Structures are given as C-alpha cells and as structure tokens.
C-alpha cells in the first residue's frame, strides 16, 4: 500500500498535563464486564458476592435481560451474614455447592467481589482456593474484585484476566498471545490476518473454554487488544512475558500499526505484510471515508466511560477528520496508552477521573457537535440540544480491526446524520 497515514503530530498528547478530577463519577463499576465475559467464556460462571444493588445493576446495565438462564448470579448478602450470625465462608460454600450441582457444565467459577464484600473484608481468594481443592479437577475456582470502590466499568474484565494470568501453565515456547475478550467475529479476523503472515500458533486470553488453555512464559509475546487491560499487562509481565507496544487496533491506522508491531517481532517481510494487509486496509480506508462523511470537521467531547476514549479520539481525529475538545478517561495508564497519546495531536483537554457536574459545565460551554457519554447522561444532553453517542455501544459492538473500521466510524456519524435527518416541524 503506497498511501501513507497522516504524519504523526509534531507534539502529541503524551506530555500534555492531565486534568485530574475528583468528584461524582458517572460510570459503571467493574461488575458490568460480566455481561460480556460470561458470553465469551462458555464454560465459566460468574458469582457476584454482593448486595441487591449488584444484582439490580447486572440486570439493568445491559439494558436488556438475557433470559436464557445466564451464567452469572448474585449471592446476596443478608442481615445474618453481616451481623456475623452466619459464617459467610460457610454460607458461600453452601451457595456454590448448590450452584455447581445445578450446573454440571460449569468448568470455571469466578467469585466476584463487590463493594459490600470488600468492605466487610470477605476473603474470596481464600474461598476460591478452598473450593478449587474441593472441586478439582472438574471445576477451577478463581476470584477477582469488580467492586466500584476499586474498579470502573471495563476494569472488571481487566481484573478477571489478571486473575487468570497466574494460573496459566508455564511454557518456554515463543508464542503470540492476544489479550482481551473480543467478539468472536473480530477475534477470528485478527487470528486470520496474523496466521496469514505465517505466525502461529496464536493464543488468546480469555480462551473460550478452560480446556483450550496454553502455557505462558518468558518467550511469550503478547499484544493487548483493549486499552483497559493494565493489571493484566502487569500480571503477564510478572510471568516474564514480553509486551508488544502499539496503538490499539481501531481504524485502518491503528490496526495496521498494531499488526506491524507484531509482524516486526516475528520477522515478517515487508512484502508479506503488504500481501496480507493491503486489501483489507484499502477496504477499511474506503469504508471509513464513506462513514465519516457526516462528521468531518466536527468537534467531539468524550466523557470518561470505557477507557477506549484516547484510542478512539486518535481514530476520530486522524482518520475521520474530527476535532477533539476534551478526552476524558476514567484513568490513564501511561505505559499502555503512550502509543495512542503520541499520535493524538496536542490541543484537547486530557482529563482523568471525573467531577460530572463540572465536566457538564465544560461540555455545555464548548457545545461540541458530538458528545460521547454514558447512558445516564445521553438523553438529558440530547434534550439540551447536544448530539450524543452512548459509549456503552462501543464496548458491545464489534469495532476492532480493518473490517469493522467503517462500522466504528458509523457509530459516531449515525447520531449526527439522524439529527440532520429528522424534520419534526411543520412544513411552513
């Protein structure tokens, strides 16, 4: 492919001072990740140890109830558990035995900590260890925390994968590991592209079944597919695995650079790389150009939500011609984010954390053409005349890699096109 990308900015946002906010956070907690993780890992069950609020969140967060009996549930703490009248560990044993008796198809069980279980210091790691011994070899029991006092939204997936990293077997093999729970269609595309370059076997974390697992070790090379996997990144480093740093695979540019970083590690020739990527790159470029017609030259404001904000701002500014006003992220892990920050041209406010009312003030003052925000803010802002894109859809829709680049641009342009389309006034 001869066409080049827009040259990297003279000054990226990597050294831009970050506006750190401490106030009301309008974000989900890490439990929300269970909504997609339980579909990805088909032999896993997620048992939240928490309150009625946790159960209500899981049921409400996705906006729909998944009424095929879901592979998640909440063990709701009751007055007796809190008053110490019942031994919480024994109660948990009883609930888990009940559950596993009813669902013999379950091979891995995640005990998921919540705000209340963290506050009462219920030791789920200890419980997981005891239960693993009890139910081995049929069921592996792991624990992680998805509590709101420790995790935001997508950090739940991070905590889950980070809990899996230490129990993977050891290997000395030089293998590529792709990290992040991607929709199946996207994962297959990624694996297909990399295999076509002659790299393999390719491992993915999380695997869809526990029996599909593999080893990791000092010769494992891993690439993150999601920007929120920071604890997993650190857990893999502790196992000696080596990180392939790259921008995240959103859009033509992100995907190409991400693949290039992998190709370089496995000595793939320029010619081979071009042979594999030229056609899908051209398709992606064409699709993005079409889908971004309506948003070219328009401004965008990101409220913090999924951690995808910085890579997406990079995609929207460099490939779709948008101007970023503010890019808010729940937290910013510089090591993981630096490739994207370097490509994001200096200018927008980079914000970490949130004080939602103050951020709303800034947003109203800026009157961006498009505001990317959570479900709690979208309709109220629409009612104020701002065009919004609800951020949760970016996590629930296949948006990675070449073939989805046009869809990704479309997610942002559709609200803008819709607003232009609707004519609800009288003709005269």
């Amino acid at each position: 492919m001869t066409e080049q990308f827009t040259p990297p900015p003279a000054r990226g946002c990597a050294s831009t001072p970050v506006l750190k906010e401490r106030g009301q956070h309008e974000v989900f907690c890490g439990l929300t990740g269970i909504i997609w993780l339980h579909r990805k890992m088909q032999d896993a069950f997620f048992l939240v140890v928490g309150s009625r609020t946790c159960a209500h969140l899981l049921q409400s967060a996705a906006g729909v109830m998944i009424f095929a009996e879901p592979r998640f549930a909440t063990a709701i703490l009751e007055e007796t558990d809190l008053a110490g009248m019942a031994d919480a560990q024994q109660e948990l044993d009883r609930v888990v035995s009940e559950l596993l008796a009813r669902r013999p198809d379950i091979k891995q069980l995640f005990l998921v900590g919540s705000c209340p279980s963290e506050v009462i210091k219920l030791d789920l790691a200890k419980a997981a260890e005891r239960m693993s011994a009890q139910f081995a070899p049929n069921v592996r029991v792991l624990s992680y925390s998805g509590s709101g006092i420790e995790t935001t939204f997508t950090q739940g997936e991070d905590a889950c994968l980070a809990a899996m990293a230490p129990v993977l077997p050891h290997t000395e093999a030089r293998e590529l590991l792709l990290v992040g729970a991607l929709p199946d269609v996207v994962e297959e595309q990624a694996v297909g592209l990399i295999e076509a370059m002659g790299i393999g076997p390719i491992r993915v974390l999380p695997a869809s079944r526990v029996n599909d697992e593999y080893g990791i070790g000092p010769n494992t090379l891993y690439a993150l597919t999601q920007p929120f996997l920071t604890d997993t990144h650190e857990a893999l480093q502790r196992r000696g695995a080596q990180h392939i740093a790259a921008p995240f695979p959103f859009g033509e540019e992100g995907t190409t650079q991400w693949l290039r970083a992998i190709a370089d590690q496995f000595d793939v020739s320029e010619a081979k790389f071009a042979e594999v990527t030229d056609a899908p790159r051209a398709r992606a470029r064409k699709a993005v150009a079409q889908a971004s017609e309506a948003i070219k030259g328009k401004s965008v404001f990101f409220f913090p939500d999924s951690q995808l904000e910085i890579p997406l701002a990079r995609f929207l500014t460099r490939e779709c011609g948008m101007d970023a006003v503010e890019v808010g992220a729940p937290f910013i892990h510089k090591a993981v984010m630096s490739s994207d920050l370097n490509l994001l041209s200096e200018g927008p406010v980079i914000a970490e954390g949130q004080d939602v009312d103050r951020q709303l003030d800034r947003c109203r003052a800026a009157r961006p053409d498009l505001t990317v925000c959570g479900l709690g803010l979208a309709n109220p802002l629409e009612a104020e005349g701002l065009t919004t894109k609800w951020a949760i859809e970016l996590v629930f829709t296949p948006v990675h890699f070449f073939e989805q680049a046009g869809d990704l641009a479309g997610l942002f342009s559709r609200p803008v096109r819709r607003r232009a389309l609707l004519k609800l006034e009288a003709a005269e």
Partner: protein
Amino acid sequence: MKLTVWTYEGPPHVGAMRVATGMKGMHYVLHAPQGDTYADLLFTMIERRNHRPPVTYTTFQARDLGADTAYLFKDAATAAYERFKPEAMIVGASCTAELIQDDPGGLAETLGLPIPAIPLELPSYQRKENFGADETFFQIVRALAKPMEKTAHVTANLIGPTGLGFRHRDDIVEVTGLLMDMGIEVNVVAPMPATPSEIAKLGQAHFNVLMYPETAETAARYMERAFGQPHTRTVPIGVGATRDFVAEVAKLAGVEPVLDDSRLRMPWYSASVDSTYLTGKRVFLFGDGTHVAACARIARDEMGFEVVGMGCYNREQARMLRSLAKDYGVEALITDDYLEVERRIEELAPEMILGTQMERHIGKRLGIPCAVISAPVHVQDFPARYSPQMGIEGANVIFDTWVHPLVMGLEEHLLTMFREDFEFHDEAGASHHGHKAKLREMGIKDSLKTETDSAEPLQTNLGPVEIVWLPAAEKELKKIPFFVRGKAKRNTETFASERGVSEISVDTLYEAKAHYAR
C-alpha cells in the same frame, strides 16, 4: 446469603430515587461508591426522562475508606445545595455506605443548610425498592406537611405516583378526570410531580386517593392520623373497580356518584361474539400485589377467564393477596425468586400469563402468551401514546393489551383443523406476531421440548402414581395445538392419577377430554 439470578425489585435506595426523580425541587444526596450511578439510566433510558435524576452520589473509593469518608458526604451535600438550590433534600446511604456507618442524616444536620435535609434510614440488606419508595415518601410528608385548614371546595390528593412507575404518568390523568366529573378538585399529586412546597399543602385536602399502596400506604395512614384525611381503598383498575371507586369517592366527599362512561368500550368488546373464545381461558397472574388483585377481578369477572393461580413478589402485600386468592380457590405464590414463578407456571400450564416483564420471558420460553400488568418496568412499558391502566380508558387499554398476545378466534380453529400446514402450524405461534415462540437457548430442560422431541416415553410423577404415556397417546397429544397442549396434558394426567391409571392410552386422553369438557 441468597442465590439470585433476576430480581423483581431493586434495592431500597432505588425506591427513594423514584420518589426524588418524580418530584421537582427535591434533591437526593446519596452516600454511595462509584458504580451506583447505574441507577440513573433506569430513568434516562427506560423512562426516557429528558433530565438527570436529581441525585448526587458521593463516589467514595477504596482509598478513602482508611481515612475519612464523612467529609466526602459533607462536601457533596454542600456542593449539591449550591449548584441545584433545591427546596428540600433527602439524604441517605446505599448498601455499601450503610456498612461504613457515616450517618448521612447527622452529617447533613451539622451543615446547617437553609433547607430541610430529611434523613432516610433504608435497611438495604432487609428491604427492597417498594419499601424504599414508601418509606421515603412517608418521611418527606412527615417532615414537610403540616395540619392545615381544609379547602373551601372538596379536594383530594392523589398519592402514590413515582418515577419509573408502571403507567403512573397516564393514571394520574385518568383519575384526575374521574374526580373532576364529580366536581372534586385535585389538591396535590405526590410524590410525582409535586414540589416540596406542594407537599407542605397536602393537609388542606379533604381526603386522599391512594393510587398505589406499594409506594404511599404508610404516608396515607400517617395523613389519616395527622390530618384527619380518610383515604380510598379501591384501586380503580377495571370496569367494576372503577365503578366501586366512584361510589367510594362519592361517599368520602359527600357528593353524588357520577361516572361518564360514554367512552367505555370494554364491556361491549368483552360481550361481543368474537370474544367467546376468551371464555374460560386459564390464566396465571403475577406482579405487585395491587395490580394482581385488580387484574384477577378483571380476568374473572370482566373477561370471563378462569384464574388458575396468582402471586406477588412484594411481601408487604402477601396477607392481602393470600386472602384474595382463597376467594378464587387458588393458593397465592409469594416469592421474589423468578425460578419459583417459572416452576409454578410450568406446573399449572396456563393458557395465558398476566405478569411482569419477567413472566413475559418465561412465557416466551414456554410458548405461553403473556400480557404485562405490573412493574418491574421495561422501556416498552412507557409507550408514546396515552395508555393508562386506571379508569375508563384504562379498562379499554387493558382489553386490547390482554387480547393482543392471544391466538384470535377463527385462527384458533384453523390451527386445530390443519395443524400440519407447513407455514401455519402450531410451532409458529399467533400469526399476527410474525415470529416463532422460542425455546430456551441453554441446556435447561424444557417441558414442551421433551414432549415433542424425546424418544423416551413421556413420564410424569403426579402424586404417588408414576404415569407413562403410551406412544400412540403421545403422538395424539402432539396433534393438539400448542396453546392448549399443556392443559390437555395436565388434565389427562390428573384424570389418570385420580383413577389410579398409570398408562395413558389414546382412550384415556379422550376420556379425560370428555370429562373436562365445558
């Protein structure tokens, strides 16, 4: 510890949010961790509200717990007052904050805000959403409303409507109309959409219309004691209940009962010959106690259904519903475990479910039509059109809503006559829905599936006798259309077991059919 998959009610602080969000000029400062803000989307997405719920969350984090979380609450409350300038505030804790015992009520008092800050004690680990709404409204009334001189004209308060309520928006309009027709003015509607200053004037009404006991019964009782205001006991859902309501109101107000029923079509629609096919349809009801009780009466007396079971998820209404169920000759199911509800429905094999969104999904899985009569709400329960449950129009709406999921009269006969037709067969469901009833996705046993696909002989354990279906009888059973197959199977098995018959033949099937003929 209780294993829970889906819940009918949220935690009590969500009930408090429903009250605050329904009101204007009220602000809720909630001591809560990051993530509890999910509840905002219930209002902005499900109910499509065009403003954020008036709730400030303190958003404490793990690192705050070692230090002092109380100052977070004080800062948040002060900032919320300054930014939103509400007329009054409610303050409280979500489940996690309840554990750290910061006492939001006491802290708010020390701030010396120039407005009332009403403390809420909502035990998150014992009670649920409806309790939260009821208790919050009661505390607001107790703090803000004072005894007052009654209005010169007869007036009433409408109490109970909240944010995220099942058709509350439209019921208010309908009940206001019923009262107006009798020359009774509405004093205050609360909590939705009242302001704190309107709450203060509750005492000047002559009586209260208790629209939803779930959310306003405690307040109604309090106002009866404190302001000498009697309250209505009849919830005007259905034709008969609306007439009773009018009579009750007339008595309380000392006026003539007047009901303008010129727009009432429901009784004629129910009497018209097309509705003959509704006769004796076996229905199961589940939801909140108030809606189930009202809908049971409509089902039996106004639609001509047979009520085969009923239940509610809110324990507060358990006693009322148990005694009502006795009148219907059934046993009430009081549970908040939807798996238990599903088991009961499978056992009873009704021809129709009148339930909540949860039962709608149970019905989908079992191939049983379902109409929604009660919260918990779904985005579909907030239609753009006027769609009340109460009063005259409510009765019309209910007729349409309940008939819609059913296979229509003649279509039912055609399905029975030509059941093997490749595109018009019983697995396809009612033709006006254009989709097939879906069986369960996952590896859970499905009774209908076992019936049709199993190579094993069909076995049922009903009481002491184990009953086996002989192959010919099982084949015959499959020829019965899906919407009555469950009933036929159950009737035949009951018939067999009562007679100590352990093998069901084609003859047994038809003997049972003759026995239950009506």
